[in-house]
């Protein structure tokens, strides 16, 4: 019922128009290889500064949904994934296009994205309020445990090497200590620079680490700056895949949708992993696994259903606990912060209108991208022929505006450029960036809840374990670390045995 209220909030010309623009922009940017849903959000973020909270956040959600769904076009037609979340779509989508079944592959991918997205949206709408209700009853001990678990999960799972993930996370924690201490109000690491009293702003840090570093990497690999060539492709070959064809595979669709959703809920994984895991699940459970990779439509369906269901999962954890699961949700978190709103369980109580408007926008954005891609594919193909050599500098200009507007402070522009360089160096040395950002965002809360917990217990650590939620999370943290270390040792032994 409240969701209907959400629809009523967003059903006005201004919000709907903004959402159409957001979904379209997200689709175009997300479809371009080298640029992701995050880049789309970074480009669009500055434009939300002049909007009210409902319009701004609905616009960002539309960009996010569009950005996650755009990657399938070039993945199917050219075999180049527009975003990492569409890697597995290439495995069968591109062979299908080469076999003259591009229309089948594209329509299957679009329907799968739509159903995956709607599935995530429905689960988010129904599960979100319940999780928020439970989260409201949690104590500072519990929050400390949950955040510690989230940080460890991101660090362990975001890259190939857990040590590097943890180092990146700790670097983020160190950076978050700059500014005023939340409990005692003393300055830390400001070195007399008054503009640093509030610490580093999230927007320039995020844009620098993810967008600027990506553009530097694109500049390094200059080959990617050529415009995509769709002249040898034909999107109208083959039969159209229908919803009836799709739902015939319901036994595969349900598990891959759930897989995508759960991966979205777990911080640090996201669509980049879920599409590959869903593909591998579909292949393992198929009666014809040998056809995967040669143009089996099930491969396309599994990948696209899962990566869009992941978006719903990531939104659940962001809205109910305030924990960003990946880089794209981090920038939506920044969007909340710009409106002085803190996502978390209280949001469902204090800002119910906004929350349900966001949920409704999430559902509507999925419908919008489906209609746009299903009926306007040729327009997107034309848009994708924009050469990146022009697009990348435009992204940088938008990033400059975004960083400046977050506080009307030119120092933030310099911070963005420096973090861009830092992000590039870290990425080059294979340090994952997601743990750094999540560490940067969550560590002030981790410190706050730890110190509050210890105030309650007069400095004794043991009572923290008396809370079941905190105890489970702390043991899960230890288990995650132990399991990852075990996996690393096992992998190393196999590699050494091969040598």
């Amino acid at each position: 019922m409240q969701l209907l209220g959400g629809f009523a909030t967003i059903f006005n010309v201004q919000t709907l128009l903004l959402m159409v623009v957001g979904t379209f922009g997200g689709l175009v940017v997300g479809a371009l290889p080298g640029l992701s849903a995050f880049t789309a959000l970074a480009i669009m973020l500055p434009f939300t500064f002049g909007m009210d909270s409902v319009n701004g956040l609905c616009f960002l959600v539309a960009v996010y949904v569009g950005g996650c769904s755009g990657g399938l076009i070039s993945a199917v037609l050219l075999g180049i994934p527009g975003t990492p979340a569409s890697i597995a779509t290439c495995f069968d989508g591109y062979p299908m296009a080469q076999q003259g079944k591009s229309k089948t592959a594209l329509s299957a991918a679009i329907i799968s994205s739509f159903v995956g997205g709607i599935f995530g949206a429905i689960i988010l709408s129904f599960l979100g309020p319940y999780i928020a209700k439970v989260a409201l009853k949690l104590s500072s001990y519990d929050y400390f445990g949950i955040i510690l678990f989230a940080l460890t999960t991101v660090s362990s799972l975001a890259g190939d090497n857990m040590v590097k993930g943890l180092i990146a996370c700790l670097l983020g924690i160190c950076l978050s200590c700059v500014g005023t201490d939340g409990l005692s109000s003393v300055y830390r690491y400001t070195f007399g620079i008054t503009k640093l009293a509030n610490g580093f702003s999230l927007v320039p840090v995020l844009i620098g680490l993810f967008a600027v570093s990506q553009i530097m990497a694109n500049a390094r690999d200059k080959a990617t700056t050529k415009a995509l060539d769709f002249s040898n492709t034909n999107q109208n070959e083959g039969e159209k895949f229908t919803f009836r064809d799709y739902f015939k595979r319901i036994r595969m669709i349900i598990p891959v949708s759930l897989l995508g959703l759960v991966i979205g809920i777990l911080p640090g994984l996201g669509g980049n992993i879920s599409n590959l895991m869903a593909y591998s699940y579909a292949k393992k459970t198929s009666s014809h696994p040998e056809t995967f990779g040669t143009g089996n439509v099930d491969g396309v369906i599994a990948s696209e259903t899962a990566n869009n269901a992941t978006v719903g999962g990531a939104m659940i954890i962001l809205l109910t606990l305030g924990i960003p699961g990946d880089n794209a949700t981090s920038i939506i978190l920044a969007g909340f912060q710009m409106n002085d709103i803190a996502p978390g369980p209280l949001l469902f109580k204090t800002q119910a209108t906004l929350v349900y408007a966001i949920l409704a926008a999430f559902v509507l954005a999925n419908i919008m991208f489906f209609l746009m891609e299903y009926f306007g594919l040729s327009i997107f193909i034309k848009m994708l022929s924009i050469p990146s050599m022009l697009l990348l500098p435009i992204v940088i200009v938008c990033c400059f505006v975004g960083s400046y507007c977050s506080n009307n402070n030119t120092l933030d522009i310099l911070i963005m450029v420096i973090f861009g360089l830092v992000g590039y160096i870290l990425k080059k040395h294979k340090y994952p960036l997601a743990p750094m950002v999540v560490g940067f965002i969550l560590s002030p809360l981790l410190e706050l809840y730890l110190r509050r917990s210890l105030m309650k217990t007069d400095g004794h650590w043991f009572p923290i374990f008396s809370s079941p939620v905190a105890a489970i999370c702390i043991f899960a943290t230890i288990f995650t670390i132990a399991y990852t270390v075990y996996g690393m040792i096992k992998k190393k032994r196999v590699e050494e045995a091969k040598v």
Partner: protein
Amino acid sequence: MKEKKNDILAGIVIIILAAVYYVCSFQIQETTSDILGSRFFPQLAAVLLVVLAVIQIIQAVRTKSAGPAKEKDISTGNQKLNLPLILTTVLLFAYYFLVLQIGFTITSIIYLLFASWILMPEDDRKERKILLMVICVSIIFPIFLNFIFYQIFSIQLPVGALFQ
């Protein structure tokens, strides 16, 4: 092999940074409002960073002694001197310093022209049509952006010290 060297070097750099971070934590005013105080968390992060950096170095050294590298370093961008990358980085810093002096619009026009030229494939530099498109977009886009922010969002983008 190169990756291992890089890991050792990165580990050493992290240890140095963590040590500096730890030492600087003594400049933080000590508080008694709670048991841990305001220095505890940064100090803990610095100590953990050192521990993890040491583990990373040990991991790298062990892998090194286990035998020669099996395959080529697959990480991209290992060229000695990547001109587009260096120029892009220099341009980013120049963009910031110029924005302070001559403002957002003019700097953005200059930046877009230079950055597009750097990223442009050699063949495209001879095509008049593409060059014309780059020039038009480089001039129109910043003016359009400035107009939207000033007129619609009422946000003044940096005008620069020269025009203040």
